């Protein structure tokens, strides 16, 4: 099965490794063009018509998410996005926010389209990447340079101990429960995305793909089920402690220690225990 690998700076090595595993020959290209959804859709469409691959492989980056579905749609296909395992014709991807895995089978003729999840393949390959300079086309989107919001007030990357809170806390009024744990441990307080979205904690305390990446000595995940967007931000922690009422929560896969139980009972008990010494 002939493969076309679309390589951007992010995840380049992983995409090449996956492409090599999926088939041969592998044609790997980076696109020599400033990104907009329109320009990249046209560029990769041109490349596909030139190379005629059976399978197009991307990294599942924010950029891929922005244009690859449009490109696949143009060929009457759906992108099999964010795959964590498998090889043609069956790929594995998570559904229901990580509660289930699905084996997804490609049907019909190529080109098919697949994007791989960050961290799912080990980077490295001897495949040379060519630069593709597409025929210039117009873009309806006009993109301004990327920027960061004003400096973060909180730098979680330097913290030794982090207590991070998720949806399980239920209400803003319940935050003192985890604040007490953070205080007893001398820890920084952090949160998963929904907590910051709701405005219960400021955005600069968010850990995850769109927030901060942390690697403390200990990371307490309290009431956090462990969606992949959160896990990528904290899997560098040396020790992970999970407290969750759902034994099947994905966070327990990563946890070195954990308690299955109601956080409103478990966390105060932990605080008591920590004070004992």
């Amino acid at each position, binding site marked *: 099965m002939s493969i076309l690998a679309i390589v951007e700076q992010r995840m380049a090595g992983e995409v090449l490794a996956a492409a090599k595993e999926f088939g041969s020959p592998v044609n790997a290209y980076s696109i020599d063009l400033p990104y*907009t*959804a329109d320009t990249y859709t046209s560029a990769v469409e041109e490349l596909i018509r030139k190379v005629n691959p059976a399978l197009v492989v991307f990294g599942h980056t*924010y950029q891929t*998410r*922005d*244009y690859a*579905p*449009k490109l*696949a*749609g*143009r060929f*009457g*296909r*759906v*992108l099999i*996005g964010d795959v964590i395992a498998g090889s043609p014709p069956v790929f594995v991807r998570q*559904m*229901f*926010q990580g*509660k*289930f*895995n*699905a*084996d*997804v*089978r*490609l*049907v019909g003729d190529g080109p*098919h389209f697949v994007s791989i999840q960050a961290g799912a393949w080990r980077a490295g390959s001897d495949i040379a990447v060519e630069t593709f300079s597409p025929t210039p086309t117009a873009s*309806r989107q006009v*993109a*301004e*340079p*990327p*920027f*960061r919001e004003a400096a973060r007030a909180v730098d979680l990357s330097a913290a030794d*101990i982090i207590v991070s809170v998720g949806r399980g806390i239920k209400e803003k009024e319940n935050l003192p429960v985890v604040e007490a744990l953070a205080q007893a441990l001398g820890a920084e307080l952090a949160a998963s*995305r929904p907590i*910051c*979205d709701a405005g219960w904690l400021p955005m600069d305390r968010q850990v995850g*793909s769109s927030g901060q*990446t942390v690697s403390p000595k*200990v990371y307490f995940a309290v009431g956090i089920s462990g969606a992949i967007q959160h896990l990528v931000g904290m899997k560098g922690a*040396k020790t992970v*402690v*999970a407290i969750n009422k759902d*034994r099947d929560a*994905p966070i*327990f*896969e990563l*946890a*070195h*220690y*954990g*308690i*299955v139980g109601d956080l409103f009972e*478990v966390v105060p008990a932990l605080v*008591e*225990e*920590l004070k004992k010494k």
Partner: protein
Amino acid sequence: MKIAVAIKQVPLRDSPLRVNAAGTWIEENNLGFEINEPDAYALEEALQLREKHSGEVIVISAGPARVSQTIREALAKGADRGIHIDVATLDTLHVASLLAAALKTEAPDLILTGLQSDDLGYGQTGVILAELLGLPHSTIIMQVQVMNDVQPGRVRVKRELEDGWFQHIEMPLPAVLTIQSGLNKLRYATLMGIKKAKSKEIKEIKVVSAGEGPQASAVIEKLYAPEKNQQGQIFDGDPKTAAAKLVEKLRFEARVI
């Protein structure tokens, strides 16, 4: 301006989910359903844009009969009318093509939808919709600014990138935007809203033959719980005992506190 919001109905958050007998999807009997979370933010954004620029908000959803309940709830929050495409399909391209056909005649100035669904999680319906309608689009949007006063007919959006980076993008209307959760504060339906919603129109579109959609390019062969890889020490039972064990382990085994 005329704003269409494409919403999806998904199982209630925290529903106990089981795989169906065929092993290809979840068992849907006895499940409760609600609006997909990012779609709720898309709806809220549409309502706020209408407040600023006046006009009309139309909610559209493809799915089985139960979906009309979720459309009704969107009407109670303030949407003006609804369109229900009565179809049972999991194929993203099929759903997008049905939405595109219905929206073509509506010709909205702006189409909003959530960035991805909490069930399939493909994150593609909005983007494919843009392709099928020949409209510009942008994804993972944190802010929408319709530039009527500065440059009529254009929209400027703030798009989320990785690691806390953002980017502003400008494009002409009509356009399709996929909305990130958290860009606004969701409103609740008021009693008055719920009452008014009862008399608002929901247009029913029957899909005559489910087999008439585009041929699916991928199918779910098997849905299953991921293999457990719990190598950690997990305690349960009495919270006090579990807490004592955990603290002991962290102090004397991991030596991290």
